[in-house]
C-alpha cells in the first residue's frame, strides 16, 4: 500500500489519480497507523515552506515519518515542496527548520534577465548520477518534466544530487539519499514521462 501524506497543502488528487492509473489503491492519509502500514510514502506539496512544516508538526506527523522513513527505510518520495521539506532549512517567509533528512537549504531562485519566476512549465532533467527511478529515461535528449516553483534546494553534499535543470541558473531537480528521493518537478503532471517515473518509483526497493 502507498500512503500519500495529507497535511493540508497541495493537490493530492493528481498524485492519487496517477497511482490509480497504474493500478494501485493509494490512501491519502494523516493517520499514523496507516502510514506505518504503508510500503511506500509520498510527501506531496504545493504552497509555502513555513506553513507546510507547521502543518507537519501540528498534525504530529514528523515522528511517524521519521520512524517509517529513517527507521524502517521505506521508499519515500518528496514532490516539489515535499522535496524541499527534506532539507535542513527553508528560507520562504522566514527561516524555518525542515525535516533535515538531506543536508541542504532551500533558497529563492536567482533573478536573471529574461527569466520568469515562478519557473513554470516543462524543462529538461539532466541526470548527474545513476538512480533506479530515473535510469530508464534516455540520457539524450533528456526527459522533460513539468515544474512550478520559485524556490530550489541547495545541497551541501554534491553526492546527494541526482539530476539538475537550468532556469537562468542550474538547480537541483532530483535529490536522493538511501531510500529517500525528492524531485522538484511534478511527475503526476508530466504525462507519459510521469507515468514511467511513478512506475519505476513503485518498483524501487520492493
Amino acid at each position, binding site marked *: 500500500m502507498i500512503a500519500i501524506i495529507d497535511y493540508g497543502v497541495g*493537490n493530492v488528487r493528481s498524485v492519487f489519480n496517477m497511482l490509480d492509473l497504474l493500478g494501485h489503491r493509494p490512501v491519502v492519509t494523516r493517520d499514523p497507523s496507516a502510514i506505518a502500514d504503508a510500503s511506500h510514502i509520498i510527501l506531496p506539496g504545493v504552497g509555502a515552506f513555513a506553513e507546510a512544516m507547521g502543518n507537519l508538526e501540528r498534525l504530529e506527523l514528523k515522528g511517524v515519518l521519521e520512524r517509517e522513513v529513517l527507521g524502517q527505510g521505506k521508499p519515500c518520495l518528496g514532490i516539489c515542496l515535499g522535496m524541499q521539506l527534506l532539507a535542513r532549512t527553508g528560507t520562504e517567509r522566514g527561516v524555518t527548520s525542515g525535516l533535515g533528512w538531506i543536508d541542504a537549504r532551500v533558497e529563492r531562485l536567482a533573478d536573471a534577465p529574461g527569466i520568469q519566476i515562478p519557473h513554470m512549465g516543462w524543462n529538461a532533467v539532466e541526470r548527474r548520477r545513476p538512480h533506479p527511478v530515473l535510469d530508464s529515461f534516455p540520457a539524450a535528449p533528456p526527459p522533460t518534466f513539468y515544474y512550478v516553483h520559485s524556490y530550489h534546494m541547495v545541497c551541501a553534499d554534491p553526492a546527494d544530487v541526482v539530476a539538475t535543470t537550468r532556469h537562468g541558473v542550474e538547480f537541483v531537480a532530483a535529490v536522493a539519499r538511501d531510500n529517500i528521493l525528492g524531485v522538484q518537478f511534478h511527475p503526476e503532471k508530466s504525462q507519459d514521462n510521469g507515468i514511467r517515473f511513478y512506475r519505476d518509483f513503485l518498483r524501487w526497493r520492493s
Partner: protein
Amino acid sequence: MVKRRIIPKFLYQNGCLVKYVRFHETRRLGGAPVSTARIYNDYGADEFIILDLSPPDEDRSAFLGVIEEMSREIFMPFTVGGNIRSIDAIYDLLRAGADKVTLNTALVTDPGLVAEAVRVFGSQCIVASIDYTGVPSGRVMVEGGRTATPWTPLEMARRAEAMGCGEILLTAIDRDGTRLGFDLEHGRAVQEAVRVPVVLSGGCGGYQDCRAAFEAGLPAVAISSVFLFTDQSPIKLRTHLFSAGVDVRPGHGSRI
C-alpha cells in the same frame, strides 16, 4: 531552459465547450469538455485552461463535477477560472483537481481576495486573467469583458504581480476568435514589465503567430479557435515550431 508552452484554452457554458468572437459575437459549440481535455492530453498539450462562462448565480456543482472528472483523465497541469468570488470557491476547485485558478474581476473589485488566495494557496496557484480592449492603447475590462476599468493592461499586470499572482493570462478581446494574430505589442510590453510568466491569448491564427509571440519574448501562448475550427493540433504545431528551432517540447503525443 524552460520550454515555450502551447496551451489550449476553452470556455464552458451549460455543459459544453463554446467559442465566441471578441467575447460576445458568433457563438459556436466546441464539444464535450472532458473528452476534449482528454484528447489534448493525448496530443501532449503542455497545459490546459478552462473558463466557466455560466451566470454568477448558477449552481457550481455541475462545473465542479466536470473538473473532477477531467482531473481523472488528464495528467498535465490545468487552470480553471470563471466566477471565482471567494476562498471557498478556490478551495472547491483545487480539491476537484485543478492545479491553478484564474481571477479576473476580483483583481479590480476585491484585491484583498486575491492577496488572501496567494497567502493561502501560494503564488504558483493564482493566475491573474487580464482582458483588455483597444489596440494599441489598451483598457482593462472585467465582468466577462462587459465593464471598463481605469487601468491599462500594463498597470493591471504590475498590480497583479504586486498582489502576488504567479502568472498572467493576457487576453486581447479585439483579437479573440478572429485568428488575425496576437497583439504582440502589449504582450511584449507586459512581459517586460513583470517577472512572472505571461500567457498571451487572443487571435492566434497558426504556427507563424506562435513563433512571433515566442520571438517577442513570451513564454507561453493560449489557443482556442485554431484548435477547435482548423485541422491544427498541438502535435502539428509543435512539430513545425520544433523544426523551426523554437524551444518547444518535441512534437510527439502522450502515450496515455
